[in-house]
């Protein structure tokens, strides 16, 4: 699964997620990706999210909506993302990751899987990573 989220200078936000689904799925299976609140969610008044991981778990836990609920309650982007993906793994099992931008522009990146690749550009620097607690950077 891949995803991209963004915010512009006016605070307008977008969430995009795309996937091939899960290996060996039954024909006709619908996963989390196309479902607002699960594979992605976006509200200019709160933030934007794209999720990845075990689709059935993300669906059952509404991971993206939960991240926005944490943001709306005043939790920071990083903590909101961590709480939701860890909460999903604890409550229904499975692994997940998500990327978040809050309405103030703060970024959250968290995952309970072994790895999740991510990247973003801020200023003149490119930030990226794949392992837990890893933030690599380079000048553009």
């Amino acid at each position, binding site marked *: *699964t*891949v*995803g*991209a*989220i*963004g*915010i*512009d*200078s006016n605070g*307008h*936000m*977008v*969430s*995009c*997620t*795309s*996937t*091939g*689904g899960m*290996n*060996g799925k*039954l*024909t*006709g*299976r*619908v*996963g989390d*990706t*196309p*479902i*607002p609140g699960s*594979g*992605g*969610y*976006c*509200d*200019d008044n709160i933030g934007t999210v794209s999720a*990845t*991981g075990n689709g059935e778990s993300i669906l059952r836990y509404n991971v993206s909506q939960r991240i926005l609920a944490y943001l709306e309650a005043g939790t920071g982007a990083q903590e909101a993302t961590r709480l939701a993906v860890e909460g999903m793994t604890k409550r229904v099992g499975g*692994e997940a*990751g*998500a990327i*978040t931008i809050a309405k103030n522009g703060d*970024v959250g*990146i968290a995952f309970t*899987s*072994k*790895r*999740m*690749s*991510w*990247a*973003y*550009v*801020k*200023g003149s620097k*490119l930030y*990226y990573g*794949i392992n837990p607690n890893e933030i690599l950077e380079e000048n*553009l």
Partner: protein
Amino acid sequence: IEPIIVVHGGAGNYTYADISRCLRGVRAAAIKGHQVVQSGGSILDATVAAVEVMEADPEFNAGKGSVLTVDGKVQMEALVMEGEHMKVGSVTGITNVAHPISVAKLVMDLPHSILGFESATAFAHQNGIPFVPDEELITPASLQALENFKNKKISSAATEIPG
């Protein structure tokens, strides 16, 4: 607020061999999105463009390189949502397109939110999205992953596809 685009390439058990290729892919996607914004494009166009970079990259489970159904077919899904009016465009079970995210973007202009299966594919082709045969979306890695799945060998981290 400084415009920013964040991308991910999927959560999972990447092998060490996958890491550099996946990092190259997400870096390229983030830079593409940034370039679209810098050149005056909308945040919608920028995020869609970033996803299209990864859909075209066979390292990722989306577009070309998608994992397969149990009977060896490609069925993809995509979602676009914007936050001003909370409009949604989404497709599920779509086949024979290179970029499901671009079809989801088209769905945003409909009075409906989600299109599925044969109707989603037909909608794409009726709206000028080119037909792409399965052979161009299926990769040796996705065939191998399905073979391993069928042989109950999926527990090997070396054969898993993330996300």
